[in-house]
């Protein structure tokens, strides 16, 4: 029963029914406000997500491109280094090639050998640290220029281009050996002669001197 006063009106709508539908109406009213808001919010969220995703994709693509550029730059740098190295080696090779040939050196050395008093057992021809191993018995076979496999390691160091010949040989005596050394010094192509070691060796009827010697040859590529 509804409350009534003297001025009240009759109303036969049950209170519980009225309350229930008043709540339903309020809910609908809020829902009619909230649902569009949620929909708009959802759409905005989706749009933002899509926009963000799109941006992220663009950023990713840019990063990828940057990475590719960076890789390419590194590759270019590396290639330039390789090219520089090759250029340097080419220059070096050119310098080396510009030096005197082994045959000329033997000719020069041969001129200094006292006839029949000095003879060689082995020799090693070296140029600028690059080993040129010639046949110990055949001097006419030419020489090999060996480029080090690890060019990186030496690329930063100045090259000491030096052409020298290590000789192990025998001399009749110290005087002969000294003459030989002296004659070598007299050759304009010879820059330096270093007798590394000498030793006397006795045979049944004679004595000879074993020696190790390094002959540094003056060449056009003698600088670093």
């Amino acid at each position, binding site marked *: *029963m509804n409350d*009534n006063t003297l001025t009240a009106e009759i109303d*036969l709508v049950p209170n519980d029914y009225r309350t229930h539908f008043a709540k339903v109406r309020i809910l609908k009213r809020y829902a009619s406000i909230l649902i569009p808001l949620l929909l708009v919010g959802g759409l905005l969220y989706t749009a933002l997500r899509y926009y963000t995703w799109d941006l992220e994709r663009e950023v990713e693509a840019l990063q990828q491109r940057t990475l590719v550029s960076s890789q390419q730059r590194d590759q270019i740098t590396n290639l330039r280094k390789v090219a520089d190295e090759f250029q340097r080696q080419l220059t070096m090779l050119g310098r080396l090639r510009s030096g005197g040939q082994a045959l000329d050196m033997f000719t020069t050395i041969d001129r200094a050998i006292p006839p029949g008093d000095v003879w060689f057992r082995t020799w090693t021809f070296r140029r600028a640290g690059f080993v040129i191993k010639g046949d110990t018995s055949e001097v006419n076979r030419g020489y090999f220029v060996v480029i080090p496999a690890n060019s990186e390691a030496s690329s930063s160091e100045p090259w000491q281009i030096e052409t020298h010949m290590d000789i192990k040989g025998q001399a009749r005596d110290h005087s002969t050996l000294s003459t030989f050394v002296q004659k070598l010094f007299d050759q304009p192509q010879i820059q330096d002669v270093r007798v590394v070691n000498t030793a006397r060796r006795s045979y049944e009827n004679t004595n000879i001197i074993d020696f190790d010697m390094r002959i540094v040859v003056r060449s056009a590529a003698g600088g670093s």
Partner: protein
Amino acid sequence: MQLGAMMHKLRGVSPGGAQGPIGLELGRDQIHLAQLQRDAHGEVQFRAQASLPYSGTREELLSSQRRFKPLLKRALSSAPFTGRRVVTCLPPGDTRIMSITYDASGARDDGAAVLQVMRSRLEGTLEDYVIDYLPVRSGSKGEQRLAVVAVARREKVIRLLELFRRSGLEVEALEIGPAAIKRLVSALSTKRGPENVLIINCGHSHSYLTMLSGRRLLLDQQLSFGEQQLIDRLCSELDMSEEAVRMAVHRVGIDAKFDPELTDLSNTGLETSQVILDVLKPNLLAFVDEIKRALRYVTYETRGEPVHRLYLMGGFADWRGSDRVLRRMIDIPVEKLPSPQEIFGTGINDSGFSIRNGASNLVIATGLALRGIVTNE
């Protein structure tokens, strides 16, 4: 559109002023709708009204959503109704209105005392009913108090509310016919000053006496007097068809001799009118006895104040001369209740306004529509 008009539109208010709810009455054969509004000067006037006949009976209509909804839609679209808030009432047969006396001294409040009385008067439990009441006489503690109580079966109330809700209406209040009549007559009395008024609503098979003291509803009583009862008597006494009787009643009425509009009526016409009155006299006398009993009750309740006026409405009120005959029999001023359109005017919607049926058809719908428009002080 001007700013003011736009603001009105935004607030759901017509440019003329605030409109009230739609008053909706499910009459015996027709649905009646009325909506009022206040104009710029605060005067109440009609905004829209409509009366549409049912295709079947009222009971069939109320039990079928598929019938009710299209009818309602047609009615609402036939005039410039605004909003979906309605004030309505149950059909007369579904509501019982009774005056009860109760002693509030032993109860927590008046409501509890009224329920205590009603418990003994109703079949089944109180939970089966919806009950509301209007205090009529509120004496001091220990005195008997008086209330008009409206009772309806809960299932019928819920059925009607659900029918309206599913049809898109929001029921603001479910009233009783007498309350609507009281509101309309009170609005009319405002122009005449407070009065004790008896309203006789002559229905098809029953009539209802509604007694108002100022704006207070003192009594609502059902009488076994109806228009159809009078028609049936005339048919049987005069051996005429119902159609012929209705035509005769409509043409000459029951008091042609004193009808200023029928001065040129033939003698036959005058005689016919007199015959009709003579035939109906026993019914009218019984009816008048009931009215006089009600008048005595009112005099008692108002401590001797006279009843100033008797308003006649309903089917019998549309009979020519019915008011004059009753005035002579009762000896107090008897008037046909002015039509709501006469009371309030049609306002800004004259172009879409027409009175399709009898003037009293819209009385209850208009009274219902007045809820919220006029105060009940």
